[in-house]
């Protein structure tokens, strides 16, 4: 069985646009932008592919950080940035198609932020079970 090699490079948020531009200039395809909350930190992964090689750029931020939109480089990112805004409440500036929080209709605002049951997900006695 072939195990795919994947790389993840962690970068500061101020270098995001520069690094994404390098991927764009190198003809990488934007595969996805995904978000997750780990303890009090938010991680956003920008995934790219070229010639079947899969690479990620990762930024780690807090909820108040405004993230520069990459939609000028990859227009498709507007879907992911609107989704992350609506589910996690992360703000993006410079987004080319901003649905102003109406892309995903949710009963509660930002339902994926601060709803992790840390006790369940990090319970040490469950290790090895």
């Amino acid at each position: 069985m072939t195990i795919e090699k994947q790389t993840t490079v962690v970068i500061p948020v101020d270098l995001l646009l520069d690094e994404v531009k390098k991927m764009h200039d190198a003809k990488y395809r934007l595969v996805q932008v995904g978000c997750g909350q780990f303890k009090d930190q938010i991680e956003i992964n920008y995934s790219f592919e070229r010639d079947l090689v899969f690479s990620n750029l990762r930024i780690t931020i807090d909820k108040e950080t405004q993230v520069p939109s990459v939609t000028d480089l990859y227009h498709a990112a507007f879907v992911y940035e609107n989704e992350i805004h609506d589910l996690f409440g992360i703000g993006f500036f410079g987004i080319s198609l901003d649905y102003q929080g109406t892309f995903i209709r949710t009963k509660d605002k930002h339902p994926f932020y601060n709803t992790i049951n840390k006790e369940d997900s990090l319970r040490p006695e469950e290790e090895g079970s």
Partner: protein
Amino acid sequence: MGREIVIPFGPQHPVLPEPIHLDLVLEDEMVKEAIPSIGYIHRGLEKLVEKRDFKNYVYIAERICGICSFIHSVSYCQGIENIMEITIPDRAAYLRVIWSEYSRLHSHLLWLGLFADAMGFENLFMTAWRLREHMLNDMEETTGGRVIQGSCKVGGVRCDISNDKLASMSAGLTAIEPELSEMAGVFLEDETIDMRTRGVGVLSKDSAWDLGAVGPVARGSGIALDARMTGYGAYEHLDFSPVVISGGDCYARCRVRVEELFTSLDLIGQAITMMPDGDIEVPVRGNPSGEFFSRTEQPRGEVVHYIRGNGTKNLLRHRVRTPTTANIPGLVQMLAGCELANVPVIVLSIDPCIGCAER
């Protein structure tokens, strides 16, 4: 210049099997802009991963979608297996390919039926769905389930298919191929279908690339993009090349799916011929610690399951980027500038799965 009005399209509409809402900004009969919104069937399945044992979560991952369910379970299991460095038995990898391609066959036949129905071609709709029953019957006989199989597990598969049954499946698919060819001829050569789909909802190759299109949408715009080319599972041992059609219109996307029916038949035939003997699962000990982006090719295109564990039985994160999500930017572009009457056909041409997109 005509008067500008906004018409809501969906969430309930005859061509939509699932709810998506589009605000169509019109000038006379011309769509100037389409503004999508979703959220009607958001189930929070990704959050459930924090509450369920990672082995049992396969059942939930499979239920992200009621059509490409099996491939969701393969994607999830493959991600866990990569993190835990588990090598599944070869026979299990080949069985996964067979059920994945059966899923593609029944999904494409379902879509072809819906597409025909959307154009008012009732007889063709019934023909496609009658042929789909053959695939569903084989799935049910080998796994116990028609659309939710439950046969994939971390470490392999839950049930085997006897060599006698594999031979009868192969014979059955050979017997049904002429009927599929006859139906394919109607989709590809009928004048009415041609008029409704040719030159409609065009997405150029460059636009498809820029907008991150995947699956038949990308391949219908001339891009050779198919996760099976990565050789995951047993695909690395099979002779496979993706169906790529230029044109970028609704006809091209339809043609990709029609031709992929025969690619799937071929892949199933190869997998049955090359099926190795041996175990179908390996024991799984411990809990996953690490992360992996698991990619597979669903009927609608590439799906990405991001899985992250911290050594406990509950995963920290499971995020799914579905092909429908990736094709929304392309859909928005296709709709801009089209006639209002063509909106249903264009929307259906990306084979939207909102259940997948919302999780």
